[in-house]
Each structure stands twice: as structure tokens, then as C-alpha cells.
């Protein structure tokens, strides 16, 4: 046994993750998958209209497995399950995944525990874009998305780009400069948003509902556009976990470990922003998922990005989809309110109980 050479990657993994942590991470991953399944079932069975769980199961079996379970249902029931609930749950999961992974990325990259997916101006850029779209009295559809979604996406990408370019002109350290530039640009955009809201008249409601986030407008077509962006971006980030681990040690240490710091930084910011922007375009500004989930996972498995990223993805998906089910059951409460109400106390509890100390 000792004669077989151990691959370099495996040895390093063994150093970073001790066996107990790997065990714990394994259990956590299993828990994540299980909760994902539970939420998936719950999200399809529960809704404002009462459908028997057996009916929903029969509909799904018929549509996806071609099985006839001998139950009859109204065509409306099928439309509700297949065209409304299923794409909605899946969209919430995809967006939750993206936000949690983007949050974890920004926290590690910026070494800042308060970083979330919106930290570099994404949120205010998206919000301003959406508000401007509401003010423009044009009704168009672009890739199944309305002007609000489209301009939100554009606004988010533009503001991150501007923040990044401006931050490079500063003589401060790159991270400090990024954070402060993000804050400054965000404030400016927020002022623009306030102005747009003031001028919006009856459109105010639409702007407001975008700011609170939600999954009312989801459809298969929209999911088909957003999912490749979010999932593709997430996978690309997962593949860069090594670089992210380097950043956790500090940029200098990362450079010593052979991480091309400048390049990796740009790529990670671009990927995380892309994922965030796509999520925001679909669901509006949903807070808390991207901030809390990575911390929760880190408290349990430590800071190793190889574990934090995928497990965050699982729990981000479950949390957001569960929050959306609650929001639906409460009759259309904005999902952002629900994530905060569930997330904040839970997070406080976790902070009190935290045993695994970690620093960002």
C-alpha cells in the first residue's frame, strides 16, 4: 500500500480537511440533499389551492415517468403543478444556490464577514435598472423577460464593472479599495433609485416588489434562460475553490501558493457577479440568503472553500425554496421578508452556539 504513489491533490486535501471534518461535511451534505428533496416535495404539494398530495404525485408521475397511477384530475390541476409550482420551486432553488455561492465567494475573496452577493454595487445597480425600466412606458419581452428584469441584469453587471474599474485607480490596497468603491457607487445609485421611485407614481408598487424580491413571474422559459447562467457560473466558481482558499490566507500568501492573484480575483468577481445578476433579474433583491448560508456552513465545517461552496449551494437552494413556500402560504408576502424572518433569529442562535472558531 505504501508503494502506490498518492496523487498530489489527495494529499493536500487530507491536510486541509481532517478526517473528522470530512465526516461532518459529509453528513452536512447529506442533510442538504435531504432538505432539498423535502422542500421540493413541499413546494409542489403546498400552495394557495388545495390539491391532494396523491394528485400531485400522479401528475408528476404521468408527466415525467409516463406512469398512469389510475387517478383522474382536472386539467387546471395539471397546469398548477406543472406550469406554476414546479418551475417556481426550481427557480427558487437555482437562485438560492447562486446567491449562497456568490455570497461565499465574496466573503472569502474580500475577507469580509459582512460581504454578501450585493456588496460590489450589484443590488443598487439592479434596483436602479429595474426602476428605470418601470418608468419607461414600453412593453417588450427579451428572452421571455420584461424590461424590468433585463435592465436589472444590465444594471447589476454595469455597476460591478464600474466599481471594479474605479477601484483599480485607487492607491489603497485592492480589497479595501474595492469595498469602499462599491459602497460609494452603491450610495450614488441608491440616490438615483430614490429619485426614480419619487417620480414613479403608480409604478412605485412594481419597483417596491422588485426590491423585496419574489418568484411570482417565474416560468419554464425564464428558468431555461437563467438556470444555465447561474448553474454554469456556480460550477465555474466551484472549480476555483483552490484559488479561493488561497485568498483566505491573504493575497500575498495566495501569491506564494502559486495563485495568480490578479487574474483569479477578476475571474471570481466576474463569475460571482454574473450569478448574482442573473438571480436578481429573475427574482429581484432577496436578502440574507447570500449572507447567512455561507456563515452557517463555515461554522459547521470550517473555512475550506472546497466544502463551503458546494454545501452552501445545497442549503442556499433549500432555504430560499422553503422561504418561498412560506411566502406563498402566507398569501404573497415578499419572499425577502420571509428569508430575513427565518434567517436572522436562526443566525443569532448560531452565533451564540458557534464552537468552531473561524476568522475571515
Amino acid at each position, binding site marked *: 500500500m505504501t508503494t502506490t504513489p498518492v496523487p498530489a*491533490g489527495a494529499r493536500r486535501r487530507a491536510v486541509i480537511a481532517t478526517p473528522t471534518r470530512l465526516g461532518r461535511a459529509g453528513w452536512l451534505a447529506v442533510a442538504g440533499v435531504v432538505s432539498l428533496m423535502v422542500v421540493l416535495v413541499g413546494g409542489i404539494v403546498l400552495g394557495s389551492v388545495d390539491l391532494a398530495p396523491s394528485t400531485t404525485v400522479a401528475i408528476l408521475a404521468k408527466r415525467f415517468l409516463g406512469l398512469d397511477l389510475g387517478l383522474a384530475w382536472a386539467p387546471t390541476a395539471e397546469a398548477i403543478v406543472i406550469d406554476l409550482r414546479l418551475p417556481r420551486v426550481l427557480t427558487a432553488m437555482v437562485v438560492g444556490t447562486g446567491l449562497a455561492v456568490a455570497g461565499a465567494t465574496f466573503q472569502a475573496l474580500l475577507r469580509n464577514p459582512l460581504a454578501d452577493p450585493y456588496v460590489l454595487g450589484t443590488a443598487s445597480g439592479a434596483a436602479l435598472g429595474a426602476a428605470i425600466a418601470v418608468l419607461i412606458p414600453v412593453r417588450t*419581452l*427579451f428572452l421571455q423577460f420584461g424590461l424590468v428584469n433585463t435592465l436589472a441584469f444590465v444594471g447589476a453587471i454595469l455597476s460591478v464593472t464600474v466599481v471594479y474599474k474605479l477601484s483599480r485607480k485607487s492607491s489603497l490596497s485592492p480589497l479595501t479599495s474595492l469595498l469602499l468603491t462599491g459602497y460609494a457607487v452603491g450610495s450614488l445609485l441608491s440616490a438615483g433609485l430614490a429619485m426614480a421611485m419619487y417620480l414613479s407614481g403608480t409604478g412605485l408598487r*412594481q419597483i417596491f416588489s422588485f426590491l423585496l424580491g419574489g418568484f*411570482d413571474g417565474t416560468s419554464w422559459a425564464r428558468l431555461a434562460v437563467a438556470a444555465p447562467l447561474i448553474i*454554469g457560473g456556480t460550477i465555474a466558481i466551484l*472549480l476555483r475553490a483552490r484559488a479561493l482558499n488561497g485568498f483566505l490566507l491573504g493575497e500575498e500568501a495566495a501569491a506564494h501558493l502559486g495563485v495568480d492573484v490578479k487574474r483569479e480575483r477578476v475571474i471570481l468577481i466576474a463569475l460571482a457577479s454574473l450569478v448574482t445578476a442573473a438571480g436578481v433579474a429573475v427574482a429581484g433583491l432577496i436578502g440574507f440568503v447570500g449572507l447567512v448560508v455561507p456563515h452557517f456552513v463555515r461554522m459547521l465545517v470550517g473555512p475550506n472553500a472546497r466544502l463551503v461552496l458546494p454545501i452552501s449551494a445545497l442549503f442556499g437552494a433549500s432555504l430560499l425554496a422553503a422561504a418561498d413556500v412560506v411566502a406563498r402560504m402566507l*398569501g404573497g408576502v415578499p419572499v425577502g421578508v420571509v428569508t430575513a424572518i427565518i434567517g436572522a433569529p436562526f443566525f443569532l442562535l448560531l452565533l451564540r452556539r458557534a464552537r468552531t472558531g473561524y476568522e475571515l
Partner: protein
Amino acid sequence: MDARPSRPFLALAGLLLAVALAACSAAPAATPTATPASPVPKATPATVAPTEVSTTAPTEAPLFPVELTDDEDGSATIPAEPTKIVSLTPAATETLFALGVGDRIVGKVEDFTPYPEAAAAIPDVARFGSVDVEKIVALGADLVIAGGNNFNPPESIKQLRDLGVPVLVVFAPDVAGAQQDIELIGRAVGRPDEAAAVNASIQQAFDDVATATAGQTPVRTYYELDASSGYFGPAPDYFGTEMIKIAGGEPLTSGTNGVYQIGAEQILAFDPEVVLLGDAAYGVTPEQVAARPGWDTLTAVKNGAVRPIDDVVVTRPGPRLAEGIRALAVAINPDLVLPSPTP
């Protein structure tokens, strides 16, 4: 894993390429929504067109199937006379009742001042800012009347259409628009003659008011919508602004379309001769108005011309506009003599 640093970079490039390609290929596909099928004849705004509407419906042609174009250029094909109607604006609910099809409404938007009484019993399927698409689908709705100009979330309207439910989006920026909407709804539910009759009675009321106020100097009027934090009155493009003008008033507006907040100084400088409390239903009283700092100098306060008014009747663009314009005219000028309304 370590030997291929360029792979994720390629993935990113691939992603961006995919986005670009998708953007190019989808652009032409998005256009068909813009083709209007059978445009509703647009009455010229500001002039409240006389009852030409009634002549448009000779009942020889079959009423259904009918394809209608709504106020936001969406089209709806209604195959047969709808029997399960969902009304997502309070005005549409009132209109449907006025057309005699109130008993076919299976779901409505939450309404704190439902009218007529029977409307209160209809289950709510939507509320401020959100529509329960699932419930509407489950009700098997065969016609949805939705509110335009962002009254109902455009997302939900799109979702309903994608599911094959005919949706008519109505939005009345002015009185002529309200009459057009009544006509449109009349055609959608197979009651064009009834719609013409409703519009004729609205027209009668507006004509009566116009005759009674002819030649009078417009009365400077501040129509208060809300004063719980700052003062809110009509924007220039607000429905009520036109109503006040027709009713013989000179309305104080914010001066900017879409903006409803009016500074206290503007109100004092305008020196309204009449203050109408559209927010009376929320507990604002003439005594409170008189006690506001500096307001005792206003002509309206000195003359006791601060009057509560039922805002819903004045600004809900439905059949009760006939009632609303009369109430508004009398509130602005209590000495006005109007012929009694035709039943």
C-alpha cells in the same frame, strides 16, 4: 486539477458567448406581441365623446368568438360567452355588475369598499401588488379583467396568458378611457348594448354638469388624497384632475406627472377656495384642516368650504362616475342646480 488552469476561464468565455448568442437569436422572436389585431377605436382624450358607442353594436353579427385588443395592446381571444370571470380591478367589478353579469364573477381583487353589496361575497384572488395565479387557474376562469399601468403585476398577467387564460388589461387615464373600458368589457362578456346604456348614463351626467357649470369661473380647488405625512393631491395626469376640471374646479396639482406630493407652501400660495377631503374616509376632518399651521388664512377655511367627499366614487373609473361627477360638482359649488339623475 492543477495542470489545467485555463479550463474555468474557457467556461466563463463559453458562458458569455452563450449569452451573446441567445441574445442575438431571441431578438426577432420577441416582436409578435406588438401587432395589434383589431384596434379599439380610440376616442380623442379630453373631449368626453357623446354616445356614439351605442351605434357600434348592431346585434346581427354573432358576439362570439371575439378577438379584442386591450388598453396595453395585448390581445385576447374569447371563444364563447364567459361564465367564470375574474375581476382584478375594483372598477371592473363594478362594471361587470352594471352590465348584469356580476353573478359570473368567480374571483375579484381585494376591495375595502366593495360595490355593489353583492361584490363583497366574491372570494378575493388578488390583493395590493400580488395576484394569486394558482387560484385563478383553479377557478377555471375563462376571462380575466386586469388593471394596467402596473396596477396588477405585469408578471402575473403574462403568466395567466401563457397558461391560455384570456386576459384583458384595462387602464383609464381619463373619463373617455373609462368609457372605452366599459365598452371593451361589454364586448368581452357579450353585453355591448348594456355597456352602451351605462356609457350613455355617464355621458348624461357629464353633460348635465357641463351645462350647469358653463360660463362660471373655475373654483380654485385643493383635492386632498392623503395628509398622513406630507400633503398628497392630484398629479396633472391623475384621473381626478380631469374630473375636477369638468366639475367646475381649477385643481391644484403637484405640477409633475406621476408625482402626488404637494408642498404645504404651494397649497398656501394657491389659496384654494374649496378644500375637498378625499381622505375623509381615513378620519381627516375640516376641524383638523383648520388647525394646520397657517391654514386659517386660506379662503376655503375662512368660508367654511372644507368638505369631505367620497374619493372612491370620484376616482374609480367605472359606472359610478355618473354619480361621482355630480357629487364632485356639488362639493365644489353647493349652489349648483343639477337636473335629477336619470335612473
